[in-house]
């Protein structure tokens, strides 16, 4: 019997549906599509989960599946920009704590939405705190060095966006 066979479906739902929904909502920015993506992820798990041999990878697998479903629905290709494996120098503007505190979750998502798509997913997963760096890399199918560089660049963009919104 594989590790997977010992996993209880309801326990998986209990453990992961909230973080998966948050990730989905961060990507889709509407309740309907976020619920749809979350459900589709578990539908696919119900159909294909038997092929998972390593129970420790289920969390990454679920996030990967959800992200791929999102990309597929949006008909977007997940391109990996070349020469991104190095953490390059990024100057992020300082953001007063009050600016971040004044945000509500919707405003935070709207700011994230303006971040370049390549940086948005890793940045969202970073802030959701559900995955390690390696798991983020696995979920997005990119090298861990790329995760780091996208986080740096994504945060720099995010801060610039927040400052711009605060000034306007």
């Amino acid at each position, binding site marked *: 019997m594989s590790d997977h066979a010992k996993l209880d479906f309801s326990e998986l739902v209990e453990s992961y549906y909230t973080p998966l*929904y948050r990730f989905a909502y961060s990507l889709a920015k509407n309740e309907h599509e976020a619920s749809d993506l979350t459900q589709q992820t578990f*539908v696919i798990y119900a159909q294909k989960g038997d092929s998972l041999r390593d129970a420790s990878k289920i969390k990454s697998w679920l996030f990967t599946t959800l992200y791929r479903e999102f990309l597929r629905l949006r008909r977007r290709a997940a391109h990996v920009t070349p020469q991104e494996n190095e953490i390059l120098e990024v*100057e992020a503007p300082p953001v007063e704590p009050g600016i971040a505190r004044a945000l*509500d*979750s919707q405003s935070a998502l709207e700011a994230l939405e303006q971040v370049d798509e390549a940086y948005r997913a890793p940045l969202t997963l970073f802030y959701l705190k559900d995955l390690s*760096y390696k798991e983020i890399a696995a979920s997005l199918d990119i090298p861990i060095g790329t995760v780091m560089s996208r986080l740096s660049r994504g945060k720099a963009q995010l801060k610039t966006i927040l400052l711009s919104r605060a000034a306007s």
Partner: protein
Amino acid sequence: MDSTQAKAILSAYRADMPDADEAAFAEALEQVGHDPELAQWFEDEQNFDEIFAGKLHDIQPPADLKDKLLALDPDKKTIPFPQPESDSSTPKPQLPGQRPWWKRSSILSAAATVAVLLGFGAVLLDPSKLEAEPELNQFYDQLGDNFRQNPKLTGTSNDLDDIRGKLRASGLRAPGALPPKVDSLAEVGFGSFSYKGTTISYVVESQGNQTFCLYLLDKSLAGNALPQDGTPVIFQQEDLAMMAWVGPQNLCVLIVRGPVEEMNNLR
């Protein structure tokens, strides 16, 4: 490593990451201890991250999402097919949906008065035992030909309710309540074509790498070839797997390329 390089690296750092001890951070973290300005920046950065992360954690799933997900448990095969209104004496169990409630609730509320949900299951028939009406067989052939030529989309949408509305607005047949696992396929778009003086509408859907097409026809075509209680019939038509059932409004034929086993997951 200068201060700017250290900031770039540390901006990706989160102390509570299980693998925050990545070597990439070590040198930059060490530099924090020697550079007061960098240390202050790092503290501000961590505060910003904590505040922003908190905003995302304010997002809460809809109250009934968990129940919808638990209903997908493959070990609890309680997913029924919608039934036509003729059989209204059976109690109506709660339909565990794979479709999001905002789509399903409207469908169910309308269907609740006309639909009775019976037991789960499809009939997997030996093609040789199928006694389809001759005309129905011609339609199956035509649907197969249309599918093999990649049905042309007159509109794209990933929202079934949206597709329903557009088909109805064009005076075309639109899908009613679908079996939950069929309902869970991801919509791509819709279209229509004419055959033997009748217009056949269709919804193209996908799951993984597979493309499905749900064709909607006049239910009178089914004759006695299909169960009138909505039980689906799965059969092979050359290189295509087909699942046909009589819905409340339409004769529905779902097609995917491959053996009939491809369709079994949707029973």
